[in-house]
C-alpha cells in the first residue's frame, strides 16, 4: 500500500502543496525540451532533404559551441567568431557532401547512417585535437544576450526565469518560423522538399542534388550553432554535450522523422516528462533517472504509434 501511495498519490499531493516548485519544474522542462527539440530539428532537416539519418548532429552541436568559445579565447571578437564558425560549417557541409555523401549516392539508408557515425568519430578526434578537451564557459555576455534572472512571486514562493533561457525559447520560436517559411515559400525550400520526395524526379527537373545537400547540411550547422550557444550557457561547453544530444533520438521517435513541428513538440514532451518524473518520481528509484527516462517515454510511444506523432504513415509492401 505504501508503495502505491508513493507512486500514485504522494507526487500529486506535493504538486498541489507547492505549486511554485511545480511551475519551476515545468519551466525547466520546457527549456530543456526546446533545446532537445532544436537538436532534433537538425536531424529532421537533413533527413527530410536527403533521407540520411544524420547521427553526427549532436557532435555538430558540440563542435559549434567548442569552436565558438575557442575562437573567442584566441582573441577574435565574439560576433566575428560566430561568422567564422558559420564559414567553418559551410566548409564542413561542402566537404561532407564532396567526400562522403557523393560517394554513397544510391546506397542503403543503413550505410549512410553508419557513415555519419564515422563522421562523428572524425569530428570528435579532430575537435579534441585542435580545441582541446577542457570544458569552458560559453561566451553569453559577449554575444549580447541578457543575463540575470526574472523572479516572479506566486503562491507564497517564487519562480525564477533565467534570462538566457527566455532568449533561448524566443530564438527557438523565431528559428522554427523562419525554417517553416523557408521550407514552404522559397525556391530552395521547394527544391528541398522535391529532393526529399523523390531523388530522381528532382534531378530530372533540374534540381542539383549536391547543392541541396550542401545547403541542408549548412542549415543544420546553423541550427547546431544556436543549440550549442544556449546549451553551452546552461552547462559547460564540453564533449559531455554529445550524450545529451542522444536525447534527440527519442524526440525524433515521438515527433516523427520528417516533421519540423513534430521535433519541437516531441522535444517538449520529452523535456517536460523527464523533468517532472525526475523530481516527483525519481527519488523512489534513486535519482539520476533523467538519463534513461526519455527513452522509456519514446518506447511507450513507439508501441502505439510506430511512425511518431506527425510522421508519415509507414506502408510496407511485400
Amino acid at each position, binding site marked *: 500500500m505504501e508503495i502505491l501511495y508513493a507512486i500514485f498519490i504522494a507526487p500529486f499531493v506535493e504538486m498541489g502543496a507547492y505549486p511554485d516548485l511545480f511551475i519551476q519544474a515545468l519551466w525547466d522542462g520546457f527549456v530543456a525540451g526546446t533545446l532537445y527539440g532544436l537538436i532534433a530539428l537538425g536531424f529532421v532537416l537533413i533527413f527530410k532533404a536527403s533521407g540520411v539519418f544524420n547521427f553526427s548532429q549532436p557532435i555538430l552541436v558540440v563542435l559549434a559551441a567548442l569552436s565558438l568559445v575557442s575562437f573567442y579565447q584566441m582573441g577574435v571578437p565574439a560576433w566575428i567568431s560566430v561568422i567564422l564558425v558559420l564559414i567553418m560549417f559551410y566548409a564542413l557541409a561542402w566537404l561532407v557532401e564532396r567526400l562522403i555523401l557523393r560517394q554513397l549516392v544510391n546506397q542503403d539508408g543503413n550505410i549512410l547512417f553508419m557513415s555519419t557515425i564515422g563522421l562523428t*568519430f*572524425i569530428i570528435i578526434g579532430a575537435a579534441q585535437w585542435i580545441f582541446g578537451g577542457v570544458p569552458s564557459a560559453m561566451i553569453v555576455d559577449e554575444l549580447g544576450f541578457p543575463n540575470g534572472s526574472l523572479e516572479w512571486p506566486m503562491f507564497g514562493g517564487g519562480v525564477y526565469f533565467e534570462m538566457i533561457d527566455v532568449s533561448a525559447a524566443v530564438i527557438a520560436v523565431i528559428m522554427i518560423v523562419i525554417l517553416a517559411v523557408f521550407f514552404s515559400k522559397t525556391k530552395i525550400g521547394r527544391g528541398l522538399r522535391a529532393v526529399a520526395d523523390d531523388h530522381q524526379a528532382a534531378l530530372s527537373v533540374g534540381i542539383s542534388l549536391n547543392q541541396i545537400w550542401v545547403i541542408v547540411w549548412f542549415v543544420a550547422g546553423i541550427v547546431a550553432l544556436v543549440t550549442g550557444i544556449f546549451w553551452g550557457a546552461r552547462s559547460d561547453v564540453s564533449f559531455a554535450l554529445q550524450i545529451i544530444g542522444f536525447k534527440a533520438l527519442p524526440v525524433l*521517435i515521438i515527433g516523427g522523422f520528417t516533421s519540423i513541428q513534430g521535433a519541437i513538440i516531441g522535444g517538449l514532451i520529452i523535456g517536460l516528462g523527464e523533468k517532472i518524473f525526475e523530481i516527483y518520481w525519481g527519488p523512489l528509484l534513486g535519482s539520476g533517472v533523467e538519463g534513461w527516462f526519455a527513452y522509456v517515454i519514446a518506447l511507450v510511444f513507439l*508501441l502505439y504509434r510506430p511512425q511518431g506523432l506527425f510522421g508519415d504513415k509507414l506502408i510496407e509492401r511485400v
Partner: protein
Amino acid sequence: MFYRETGQFKSKYREELAAFPLAEDKVGIAILLVIAYVFIPIFGIPGLSYEFTMGAIMIPVFIFTITTLGLNILLGFAGQISLGTGAFMGVGAYSCYKIMTIFPDLNIIICVILSGLVTAVVGMIFGLPSLKIKGFYLIVATLAAQFFLEWAFIRVAWLYNYNDSGGIEGTNKEMFGLIVSGPQSDALTRYFIVLTLLVLLTWLASNVIRGRIGRSWMMIRDMDIAAELIGVRPLTAKLSAFAFSSFYVGISGALMVFFWLGAAEVESFDVSHSFTYLFMVIIGGLGSITGSYMGAALVWVVPVLIKEIGKTVFGFDAFVMENFSIIFLGVAIVVILIVEPHGLARLWQITKQKLRLWPFPY
C-alpha cells in the same frame, strides 16, 4: 592454384554441407589453430614484447571477437540493430561477479557461462520492443537498454556488493591447481582459456547459423513480412537472435573483466564502447564470421599500434595519439563503407576468388 576445388569430389550431402567443404579451408584453419595455440605462446609476435603481445593485443582481440560475433549474429544475421552492446557486456560482467560472490567455490568457467545465460535473459527482455519496431527506431529501444543498465550499474549497489569504489574486481581463482583469473594469474593461462572459449563459441555460432534457427534469422533480416508468410515466427526468431547474441556478448563482458582488465567500473561499459563494437562488425563485414575476427582485430589492434608507435618512435604525447586513433577509426569506417560496404569479409572473399583462378583468370 592455391585454392581450388578441382578434384575434390563429394559423395554425400553431408560432405557438401560441411562447414569447410574444401581441403584448403581445413588446412588453413588447422594452420591458424597451430599458430594460435603453439607459435604465439612460444614466440610471441615479432618485434613486440611478450607482455604487450598478450595483455594489449591477443587477449583483448579474442575477447572482442566474441563480442563482435555476438553483435554480428544480431545485426548481420538477424538484421536487428543494437547500440546496447556495451551495457550487455556489463550485464555479463556484473552477473559473473555476483555469481562468484554467491558461489565462491564454483569453477570460474561455469560462472562465465552462467553469466552469459543471465545476459541472454536480459537481452531477450530488452529485445521485446523489436517485435513491434524496426530499423532506426530500434536504435532508440537499445539505447534505452544502454542508459538504463548504465544507471543500474551505478545505483543498484547490490550489483557491486556495496563496496566503496563502486566497481567490480576479480579475485584469484584456481582451476586444476593453476591460478586462472585474478591479479596473480599468468597471462599465458588466461590466453589459453580465452582462446579455447573463442574457438568453441565460433564453432557453435557457425553451426547454429547454418542450421534452422540461423536460416530463420536471415529470413527475418532479408524481409520480415515475407518470412512471416512462409511460416517463420518473428517472436521466436527475433527473441532467439537477441538471446543468442546477448549470450556471446555477456560471456565476452565477463571475460573482459575477469580475464583481461582484472577490475572494471561502469565506464568500461558506456555507450562509446557500444559504438566501437558496432564498428568492429561493420568494418569486418555484416553477416560473416570471418569478418567478425578481422573487424575486431583491425579496430582494436590498429589504434593500439598507432598509440604505441606514436609514443615510442615519434614521441607524440598520449593525447594527440588518442585523438589520432579516433580519427583513424572514423576515416576507416567511411572508407570501408565507400569502397566495400560489405566489409573486410567481402574483400577476403574476392581475394579467395582471385586465388582460385590464379594464374589463369578468364
